[in-house]
């Protein structure tokens, strides 16, 4: 290490030499350092500026190369007062670099800067402050403090910005000044120019990040200025506001539910008109009953969103992390597109973005699923990018896309980049563990790889196969055998060790091969790597325990070899194991348990993402990237339990008239010299930009504004927008104060009103955004539709492709695989045999295309559309379901059977209702072969039987899932339950509510569909709600419990959430579903009336179902 640095130093030095050849005046004069410096000194002392400049340039070049030029300090510092700006600048550069080392001399220059601070030119003032504050000499701290304080109230925003920059400098020089500096920060935070905002927040973050109270008053201003701040400032402000919001607002995802997502949909899709939007938004907020988003929270989300369009990746990332940490779940999705865009940027940017995306995909997979293909890997990507992309792809894998993904992985395995191939194999392994459906396919594919020529590939496959086999070893003894054979060829230690472990662990499955393997390994023991040796010992021990007859001597031999091994670990292990397994009179009680110790059932390893749990670090931070706390990292605070007082953010203005006059005074004082200084200063960014483009609307608003405060605006001429805005705010505030005085309980609504008022001027911006979001959601739904279609298409296409390829494959392979032209072999050539996938898309619940969003809803619900019927997740919900008796314990002679409708989609056949059946064996003996026989069904009804239960020991209970197609009737399905001894006639009769599955509809869709189902298809009933049906929650709960429907999010019932004010219009609850087998829509509307009254309407093409449903729901609601 040090050698390399020395080398580079040397190189740096030598490369410096010829550089001087460029200077016409320099050639060959400087043979030694001393001379060179003498010469430079001479030049600096001359009274020609050109010579001085030349000398300074050379000195700066020396500094740039890391050479010491400190002995020139006295000569240089004399020139600090030089009239020539260029010389001066270079002297500044030099001073900043060496002042620390030559403090005494540096003091000589201070007076020059002090003079500079008073210069009429703002740039000279700024640069004097910059250099003064950069000179790290403690004795001038008071001078610096004074200078900063003065500059903080300078009329030039540029100087104020420099003052903000100087604050952290002084703070690091002398932390004792903190209190005074905080005062300056507080003052600068109140500054209204965008130029200052970023820098002062930066200073805030460095000096007093915990003084969150300083932000309150400036919060709204910062949010509003944000879009016009320069990019770097935006990043800092957004990061700070993220932390701020975490302490001040409530978690928007407190009551996570499907409804929430629906709400947002409605909210975006609704309309462009601002006022209406407000209402809808408010109602959407109101519906999440206990949680109401603070308008300031909303303001932050709204004002940061456009920044996703920034060209600066750091800004995009900052907004993305803000949304990830602060936004309601349903809104987080907007960041995905922007992050995917960054994937086109430089590879370093990609690297950081992918790391963050990897973390996000674990929490919110759905967000990036539409962009799956953007993460496909190109052979030209750098390896570290490839591996990260692979990570993201693996995280995104699910039942629906796994087949395409595996096909993609298949091409990756052929890559030339071996590290990447290894990672791909691991990725396949992870997909296999996560998605049971493809486990066997993956395993087969991986076994194919075992015959790969590349040892690394084989080794990695072995390791992954080992992990997979551990999950279900019984079925795969042939693979274990196959791997046992491989041990002769594989040399990679990790792979050998894995194989040995497998054989040892499952030696009972391969009783003949295992001892032979041990024999071979005993022979080569001394030449093995340490990890292999350890596994040989393990294998020997396990075999000794299970098959001591054959392996006793071998084990002894191995242990003896190990006893004299060089590695103490191995010697230790051998000693330990000998004591444990070989029974001697001395050996203690443990000997008895040796078998239990060694052959205990070991849990299968969980293959999980290294990015799991990384989201406790703030995304986009260095700490997140390193997965370790970096110094200076500030934890993202947890959400508060209850919101702190929101009123702290109100900018209080005690008296209107007083305030204006004060303002006037200030402006008078400030404005004059402000303009005389330079006319460029006039409109601090915002006015020029936003006023002109916020359209006629905002102009008219501001116009009227101006006329209202005519005198003032005339005087100040070019009033900045932010000022006006503040005045508006103030006005609103005053109104508000009055209002709050009048009626205290309505604070909340008043506030939302107030904020909407205060933002009048921002309307242009906002409407634009809403329109955008509307169009966005539109296009999103469109795209999702088209995507689905195109995916289907592409699947077909690629399937046919695969077919073609397969057809081609046998034709091409013979020359390649000259030795094994086995039919089987050629079929297996294609890794991860595609035949196995073909049923997958079919079995995935392809819902009838009537309601394209239905698949979406199931995604949202996070229903695991599980593959195998027995997967635990389908059974998990049973607790909440009402169990019905199918066979009583007594009638069943000890066998009790209960059933319930699990409301899970039945994946083998989407037209069937899933029925979960629980068998309990209450007898004292075993019950065998439980299955179904002779179903006597009504015409059209179908049953998909559960797979036979082979054995149930006494007291055990087993749960299975079967599917029944009831043909949308409530007729019972009759069949026989058979055990090995008896047959029982049983029947399952479904309540009408179970014959349907939820459908996701928006309110508009709902109304449209309802319009189609009028007349005969509509059944209406008046009812009086039961005593307990006091609020919407109970109603929703009751209805959904009665029938398997999903709630339609709607916006018109907002008022029901604010109990103090009586609801002017009655809320309406809507539910939608469709019948399972024929897919007819079922629409339920519960409209609340005065008092307890309500009107229930059911629209369904199937009138029988409709009438029955009305009856059931009536009963549920009136109880």
């Amino acid at each position, binding site marked *: 290490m040090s050698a390399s*640095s020395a080398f580079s130093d040397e190189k740096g030095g030598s490369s410096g030499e010829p550089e001087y050849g460029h200077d016409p005046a320099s050639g060959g004069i400087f043979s030694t350092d001393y001379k060179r410096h003498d010469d430079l000194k001479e030049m600096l002392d001359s009274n020609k500026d050109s010579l001085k400049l030349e000398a300074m*340039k050379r000195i700066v070049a020396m500094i740039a190369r890391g050479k010491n030029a400190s002995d020139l300090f006295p000569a240089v510092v004399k020139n600090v007062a030089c009239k020539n700006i260029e010389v001066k600048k270079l002297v500044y550069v030099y001073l900043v670099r060496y002042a620390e080392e030559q403090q005494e001399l540096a003091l000589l220059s201070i007076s020059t800067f002090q003079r500079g601070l008073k210069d009429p030119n703002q740039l000279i003032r700024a640069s004097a402050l910059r250099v003064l504050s950069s000179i790290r000499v403690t*004795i001038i701290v008071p001078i610096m403090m004074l200078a900063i304080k003065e500059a903080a109230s300078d009329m030039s925003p540029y100087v104020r910005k420099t003052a903000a920059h100087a604050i952290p400098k002084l703070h690091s020089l002398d932390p004792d000044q903190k209190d005074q500096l905080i005062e300056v920060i507080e003052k600068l935070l109140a500054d209204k120019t965008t130029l200052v905002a970023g820098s002062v927040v930066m200073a805030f973050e460095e000096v007093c990040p915990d003084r969150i109270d300083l932000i309150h008053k400036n919060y709204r201003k910062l949010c509003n200025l944000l879009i016009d701040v320069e990019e770097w400032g935006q990043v800092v402000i957004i990061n700070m506001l993220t932390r701020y919001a975490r302490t001040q607002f409530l978690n928007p995802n407190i009551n996570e539910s499907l409804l929430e997502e629906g709400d947002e949909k409605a909210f975006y899709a609704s309309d462009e008109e601002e006022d209406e939007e407000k209402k809808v938004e408010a109602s959407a907020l109101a519906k999440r009953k206990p949680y109401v988003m603070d308008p300031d929270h909303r303001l932050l989300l709204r004002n940061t969103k456009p920044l996703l369009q920034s*060209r600066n990746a750091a800004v995009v990332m900052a907004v993305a992390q803000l949304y990830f940490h602060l936004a309601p779940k349903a809104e987080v999705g907007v960041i995905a597109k922007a992050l995917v865009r960054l994937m086109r940027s*430089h590879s370093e940017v990609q690297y950081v973005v992918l790391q963050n995306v990897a973390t996000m995909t674990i929490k919110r997979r759905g967000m990036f699923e539409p962009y799956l293909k953007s993460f496909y890997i190109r052979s030209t990507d750098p390896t570290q990018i490839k591996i990260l992309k692979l990570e993201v792809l693996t995280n995104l894998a699910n039942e629906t896309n796994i087949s395409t993904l595996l096909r993609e992985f298949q091409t990756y395995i052929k890559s030339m980049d071996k590290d990447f191939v290894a990672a791909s194999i691991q990725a396949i392994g992870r997909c296999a563990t996560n998605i049971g459906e493809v486990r066997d396919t993956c395993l087969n594919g991986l076994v194919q790889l075992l015959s790969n020529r590349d040892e690394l590939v084989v080794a990695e496959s072995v390791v992954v196969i080992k992990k997979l086999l551990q999950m279900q070893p019984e079925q795969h003894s042939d693979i274990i055998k196959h791997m046992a054979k491989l041990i002769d060829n594989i040399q990679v230690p990790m792979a050998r060790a894995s194989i040995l472990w497998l054989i040892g662990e499952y030696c009972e499955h391969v009783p003949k091969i295992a001892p032979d393997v041990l024999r071979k390994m005993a022979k080569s023991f001394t030449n093995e790597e340490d990890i292999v040796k350890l596994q040989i010992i393990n294998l020997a021990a396990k075999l000794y325990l299970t098959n001591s007859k054959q392996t006793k001597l071998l084990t002894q031999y191995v242990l003896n070899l190990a006893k004299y091994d060089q590695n103490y670990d191995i010697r230790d292990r051998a000693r330990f194991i000998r004591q444990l397994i070989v029974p001697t009179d001395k050996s203690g009680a443990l000997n008895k348990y040796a078998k239990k110790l060694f052959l205990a059932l070991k849990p299968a390893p969980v293959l999980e993402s290294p990015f799991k749990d990384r989201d406790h670090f703030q995304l986009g931070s260095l700490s997140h990237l390193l997965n370790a706390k970096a110094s200076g990292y500030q934890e993202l605070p947890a959400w508060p339990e209850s919101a702190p007082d929101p009123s702290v953010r109100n900018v209080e203005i005690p008296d209107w008239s007083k305030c204006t006059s004060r303002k006037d005074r200030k402006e008078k004082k400030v404005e004059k010299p402000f303009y005389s200084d330079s006319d460029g*200063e006039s409109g601090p*960014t915002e006015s020029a930009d936003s006023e002109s483009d916020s359209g006629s609307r905002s102009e008219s608003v501001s116009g009227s504004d101006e006329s209202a405060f005519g005198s003032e605006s005339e005087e100040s001429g070019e009033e900045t927008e932010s000022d006006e805005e503040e005045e508006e705010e103030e006005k609103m505030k005053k109104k508000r104060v009055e209002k709050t005085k009048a009626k205290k309980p309505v604070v909340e609504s008043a506030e939302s009103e107030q904020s909407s008022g205060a933002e009048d001027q921002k309307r242009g911006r906002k409407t634009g955004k809403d329109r955008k979001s509307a169009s966005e959601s539109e296009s999103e739904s469109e795209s999702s539709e088209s995507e689905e279609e195109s995916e289907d298409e592409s699947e077909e296409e690629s399937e046919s492709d695969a077919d073609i390829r397969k057809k081609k494959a046998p034709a091409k392979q013979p020359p390649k695989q000259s030795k094994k032209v086995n039919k089987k072999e050629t079929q297996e050539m294609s890794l991860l045999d595609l035949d196995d996938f073909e049923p997958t898309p079919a079995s995935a619940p392809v819902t009838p295309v009537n309601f394209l969003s239905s698949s979406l809803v199931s995604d949202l619900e996070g229903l695991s559309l599980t593959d195998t019927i027995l997967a635990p997740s389908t059974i998990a919900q049973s607790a909440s379901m009402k169990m019905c008796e199918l066979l009583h314990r007594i009638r069943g002679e000890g066998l009790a059977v209960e059933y319930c409708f699990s409301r899970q989609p039945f994946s083998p056949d989407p037209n069937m209702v899933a029925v979960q059946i629980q068998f309990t064996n209450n007898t004292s003996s075993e019950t065998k072969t439980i299955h179904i026989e002779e179903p006597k069904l009504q015409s059209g009804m179908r049953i998909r039987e559960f797979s036979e239960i082979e054995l149930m020991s006494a007291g055990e209970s087993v749960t299975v899932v079967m599917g029944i197609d009831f043909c949308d009737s409530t007729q019972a399905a009759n069949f026989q339950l058979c055990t090995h001894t008896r047959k029982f006639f049983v029947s399952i009769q479904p309540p009408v509510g179970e014959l349907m599955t939820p459908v996701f509809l928006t309110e508009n869709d709902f109304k449209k569909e309802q319009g189609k189902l009028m007349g005969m298809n509509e059944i209406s009933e008046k009812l009086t709600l039961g005593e307990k049906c006091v609020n919407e929650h109970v109603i929703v709960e009751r209805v959904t419990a009665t029938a398997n429907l999903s709630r339609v999010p709607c916006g018109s019932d907002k008022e029901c959430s604010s109990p103090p004010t009586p609801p002017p219009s009655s809320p309406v609850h809507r539910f939608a579903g469709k019948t399972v087998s024929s897919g007819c829509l079922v629409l339920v509307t519960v409209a609340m009336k005065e008092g307890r009254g309500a009107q229930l309407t059911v629209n369904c093409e199937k009138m029988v179902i409709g009438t029955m449903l009305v009856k059931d729901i009536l009963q549920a609601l009136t109880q």
Partner: protein
Amino acid sequence: MPAKSFLLLKIFIKTAVSSWLFSPIMIHSLFLINNVGDLFLEKHWKSVISRTVCDYFFEAREKAVEPENVPPVIHTPHHYLINIYREKIFFVSVTQTEVPPLFVIEFLHQVAETFQDYFGECSETTINDNVVIVYELLEEMLDNGFPLTTESNILKELIRPPTTLRSMVNTITGIGNIGQTLPTGQLSSIPWRRAGVKYTNNEAYFDVVEEIDAILDKSGSTVFAEIQGGIDACVKLSGMPDLTLSFMNPRLLDDVSFHPCVRYKRWESERVLSFIPPDGNFQLMSYHVSAQNLVAIPVYVKQNISFFETGPSGRLDITVGPKQTMGKTVECVVVTIHMPKVVLSANLNATQGTYNYDPVTKVLMWDIGKLNPQKLPNLKGSLSLQSGAPKPEENPNLNVDLKIQQLAISGLKVNQLDMYGEKYKPFKGVKYVTKAGKFQVRM
């Protein structure tokens, strides 16, 4: 200053040094290192950090083999090194505390871009030749480790870029690069445009450049394709012009990002680009046309590569032809293949263009030029492999580069450009180009 205070000073120094150790500062130092490993420039924005800190970087560099694989963030015991690799130069920045990594990375890229802007290219030679300007730029771009001025329009006013003429004048007159007049732009309401711009010929050019990113599989069907576009502008207009650029079909654009000068709200509400442009060259916007819209693939490639078990040889046969070109000619077609390591040489015959196989990097490059639909270019012949080595299992991928003039493959069309705020009539021009981005064919 009295002698007494000097004594006091010494005490101060001690306390001060300890507090600097962990100063929270975003970018502490910057080192420039060429791809051979020579450190040729260093700049510190606070106290000097010894260049030995780069040893950790060299270590990582060695481990990574390829320069692209150096991790962008390297964790050392006391510092974090955040680096980028550009134009064969590593920009290694040192920070001590938590900082958004992208913030630093973006800034470093901005530095590299500024160098490119100033010196025409960003290379070790140009940086060494202009070391004083580089130093001044760095000083101006970062203050106390926090970005100060990064807009090139403003920077150019503070520090004049070198031109050949000026450097000559400088040597004669002894007047340097730094402007005598002080800039005002920084303080104007439009931070990206300098004030007082004057041209005799007022012109504004816009290049719509689209790149097709695609992965095609063996059979030629599209695995993934999307279009990345950008509008590069060259605006030389006097005064403060306010421009409005509208499209015939703005709905095509799926995702956009803008230069800060573009008024986001106008875009949201009317789908027009309204902006006061910076002076000179800049990228106005970049956009994305997603994979959901069918992307036209302008060329097809029929390729066959095979290696034989017996005898150290392989065969290669590639044909390139036009597919969906909208009636335009495909130009500058270059096919690049990264061959497996065992391929020693190639003996091929190209019906058009020239091919070149570099046995060191194992890259086969076939420069075709213009694509003639009547006579499709073909490259055919044998590859010789290292004898004794097993035949490669993997098939190489094929990268295609191409260019189509006067066509934006997405169909995007500029409708019109209006100017407000100034009285003269500018000359306006729009050009379309389609290129291959990351266009890859799997074999």
